[in-house]
């Protein structure tokens, strides 16, 4: 047992598709974690800096600032040094994966994201922050 009052992982979901943000938000909560959602890149920058999530689930194709740019900027943020960045996108060619890795993502997941994979990751984050 730890002293941390909230063992839940904090996840920031960024996607311009409202159906995505809504369902991810509810699902993450249903899995016992905490979620904040925003729907564009610029809001993601502000929200990430104040919310300090453990995981950022980031869409790539968004109007204005795209996911690669958001990731690149937030990667320089010392307070987010341990944050896990996941690119979630419909593009699955190797060049897209490469691009995501260069932008600083930890994972590149194709939509739709398998639930068990997300759940496993969130639980591992949970354990990590609990240690």
């Amino acid at each position, binding site marked *: 047992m730890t002293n941390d009052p909230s063992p839940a992982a904090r996840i920031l979901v960024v996607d*311009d*598709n409202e*159906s*995505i943000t*809504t*369902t*991810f938000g*509810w*699902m993450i909560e*249903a*899995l016992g974690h905490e979620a904040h959602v925003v729907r564009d890149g610029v809001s993601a920058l502000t929200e990430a800096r104040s919310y300090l999530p453990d995981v950022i689930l980031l869409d*790539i*194709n*968004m*109007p204005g600032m*795209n996911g*690669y740019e958001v990731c690149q900027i937030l990667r320089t943020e010392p307070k987010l040094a341990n944050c896990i960045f996941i690119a*979630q*996108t*419909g*593009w*699955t*060619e190797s060049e897209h994966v490469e691009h995501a890795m260069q932008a600083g993502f930890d994972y590149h997941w*194709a*939509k*739709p*994201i398998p*639930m068990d994979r997300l759940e496993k990751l969130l639980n591992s984050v949970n354990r990590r922050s609990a240690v």
Partner: protein
Amino acid sequence: MSTVEAKQSANRWEQASRPLQADASAEDILLIDDLPENLLVYQTILEELGQNLIVAHSGEEALKLVLKHDFAVILLDVNMPTMDGFETASLIRQRKKSSRTPIIFLTAFTDEVGMIQSYASGAVDYLPTPVIPEVLKAKVRFFIELSQMRRQAALQTEERVRRQAAEESARNAAFLVKVTENLTRTRSQSELLRALVQLPVPYIADVSITWLKENESYADQIECNFPLGTETEDRPSTIKLFELPWLKEAAEEVMETGEIHFMDKTPPSSLPHSNILSFLGSVIVLPLLVQGHVRGCLVLARQRSSVPYRFDDISLANDLAYRVGAVLENVMLMEKIREADRRKDEFLGMLAHELRNPLGPIYNAVHLQKLLKPEDPRLADLRDIIDRQAKHMCRLIDDLLDATRLAHGKILLRKERCDLNQILHETIGDHRTAIEASGLQLKVISPNSPVWVNGDPTRLVQTIGNLLHNAHKFTKAGGVITVRLEAKKNERLATLTIADTGIGIEPKMLSCIFDVFRQADQGLDRSRGGLGLGLALVKGLVELHDGKVEAVSHGLDRGAEFMIQLPLESLGNAKMNDVPAAPLSSDRKYRVLVIEDNQDAAQSAQMLLHLEGHEVRMASAALSGLDVARDFHPQIVICDIGLPEIDGYQVVRMMRQDVTLASAYIIALTGYGRQKDQQQALKAGFDLHLTKPIDYTNLRHALILADSKYDKMEATSP
């Protein structure tokens, strides 16, 4: 002449250094004498030489013969009546053909005057008569050999000229082969141009210039090549084609007319002395033709100090240009294919992306349904999300199939007289809520009376819907979408414009905005999604309606306006008793058999049919389905095509052969909505072909069609 004789004569004539050629064809010898006995003597003496001895009995006869033959030597009797030998000789000399033929005079007078006169009239020799046979033979033999040698020399000259021509033509052929070889390796028009400009120098030109006209994939491209050894600083660093007004003019004329232009000399140049173009002499400008159209031109030029172009060079240049045209056509075709291939690949990537996008929320929502408690109010939202996203996927797939059908000309319109005004308002009704929910204002301006057109209402709804969807998608909250319908009776046109205040269209995109896959070019900001097929479909469908569509935009962020024009239906064409509208719902209740191996699809169909009050039985395979059918006697059978063991086509054939089942209304259910699949299903014996997923709308549609079949059957039965 026999071989032995030839050898003998060769020995005898060793002094003359060249033997008579045994294989040379016989020479013609003309013998002229008015006395037949003399002629006979000469003939006898000369016979053994084996030549053609031709005789003439008078000067007149001889003159006729010299016109026909090319004599090696002429023996001429001086003393003849009417025309004597001297006169005959000078007349023979006057004939061009015989002006140099050796003439030997035969005369009894060996005085000096006679000799002088005979030489003056053209003799090369003379013999006193009566002749000594050996002397006559020796002289004649000498002239035969002389003639043979002359012929031989002429033959050799001819041969040399021929060989030179053959060598030149071989060199030209090698040059053309090299050209073709080098050019066929190139993969783009610009590469071809760069390769081409290198080839004519120095073989056929001192300077070569190529110019490709601007086309859809390339801007104007000009390349220049100069002879080796030209100092680098003397080469024009940029293309100087247009620094020479006459050259520019000539090139433009060739581009215009497609005809070769040749200049023997070129006007003096005002260019600095160091510029190589200032030394140009003769110039050929050739069109590069692709399927009869001028794609560009090739300029070949020689310096003033070089030999000017001759006819042969022009012909070679023409050959060269022809070959370049053929290769250019191939390269253009290859570029087109590569471009289409690239676009297709891009499109496939985008298609996967666009299909994955709605799949995400559906997947999430389904999982959430498991996680949430049954009383959770959010379950209703989840259902809405699934509904919305599934519809979105269906629309993508429908668009994709429609685009394929359009591309293959397989969309068949069910045209009827219909009111475009009504269709417009129905379509707007479908979209208004969504548009207004995005914070957009929707203004509609339309006449109060019907606007009759001859069209397929479903396709017109799709067309207008696509344009509304497009305007919605590309306009931010606070914007306005204005829809205006007008019937221009004078022009017999219905005009529908849909204008928005959205992101607009770049001028360079305007021309290709209706192309399939075009939206793929928008790159990373695919936030608005879609396959980019909507406008291509609009164009295709409007054109199938004999109408046209135009897009107008004043640039980015300045909105866009799409205008559709359709021919108005004249009253004369209208049927007075229009077909009554199909009933909206079916009252009949049926025994329905669903044969489907996909449990989920089967269950959802069963639920929908139950709700409508029909009696439903299920089977998950073909054989069990046939068993159930024989027992249940269904009036409607819905049968999947891709069944295990026996496929749906087989099932329908077996049912049609069974008297108790033959009259059932049998519906094929497949995942493929292609025209081919539909035709195959109808051919196999199905009454109708439905594309999965089976939903409320298409099931209802199918039942109404079944009604009409049963109505007809009842009407015809006693």
